[in-house]
């Protein structure tokens, strides 16, 4: 059965981002609000965040910010959470955030799988993903942007008005 393209309202992308991945003890999560307030006071935008408490109790956080704010955000997390050297705070420079603004994820089965399958087929590494409600956010290496857009345009279309 032929499968039609996913009809989107739009595709946005924002390059010049940095991705921070953090694995920490759950009890330290209580310090996160004050860190985000500090970021807000400095006018530092957070363009993407996902958090997961794993079944083993570990607290996993991924977020992106503009590359030029990386040092500030890294220092805020390091100091605000009193991270030891053994705590995993990984940084990936020069990533792009792609946002697919389209149909509600819960209403049409297979959107996330088609998006990921298309990117995987074309060898794009998806560093993080959050898909809910009417949008899918993908963090990819910046150098994969052109390839990613080609992949996504193969399975998605933005109907002309």
């Amino acid at each position, binding site marked *: 059965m032929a499968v039609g393209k996913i009809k989107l309202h739009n595709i946005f992308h924002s390059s010049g981002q940095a991705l921070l991945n953090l694995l920490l003890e759950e009890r330290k999560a209580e310090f996160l609000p004050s860190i985000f307030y500090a970021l807000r006071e400095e006018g530092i*935008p957070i363009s993407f965040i996902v958090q*997961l408490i794993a079944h083993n109790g570990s607290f996993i956080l991924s977020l992106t910010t503009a590359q030029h704010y990386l040092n500030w955000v890294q220092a805020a997390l390091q100091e605000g959470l009193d991270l030891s050297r053994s705590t995993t705070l990984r940084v990936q420079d020069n990533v792009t955030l792609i946002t697919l603004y389209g149909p509600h994820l819960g209403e049409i089965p297979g959107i996330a799988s*088609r998006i990921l399958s298309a990117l995987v087929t074309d060898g794009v590494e998806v560093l993080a993903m959050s898909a809910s409600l009417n949008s899918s956010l993908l963090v990819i290496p910046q150098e994969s942007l052109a390839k990613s857009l080609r992949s996504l345009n193969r399975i998605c279309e933005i109907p002309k008005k």
Partner: protein
Amino acid sequence: MPMKKIKVAGLRQVTNLSQVELSSLPMGLSQTAQILTLLAENGINLEFVVTHAQADATIDLAFGVHRNHIAAALGLLRGMRGKFDLEEVHSQDGVGMISLFPHGSRAAVIGNFLSAFKDAGIKLLTISFSLSAISGLLEESLIPDALNALSEYFELPG
């Protein structure tokens, strides 16, 4: 420092969800894509999907399904454990999702969102982000408490 209330354009709550968590999937996402495809081909809709790369070059995948699909989803995944090289399939029933559709500063929204849950002593199982909303997954029975707490930080509609 408590922030002033942030106006939100809308609030959405979904109940009767189950969360499924698969950890330590191989990097490269082909298995993740295959897993999601398997669910889609069997008509299982996902309310949200979150992936996160680990330091050991593996991927954690968490997604939410409606409770009436959880038995089928777990059956499919456990039946394919060998093919997908899954260590464990963890699930939690009785969860719900609250989504806030805010205006303005994302960092302040995240700060207020986390503060509300912290004040109420409610554990956020997962946070997902979309273009217009921030969503938190929590134990369904705690949704009324969460809404009370959120009302201290956000001007909720209605």
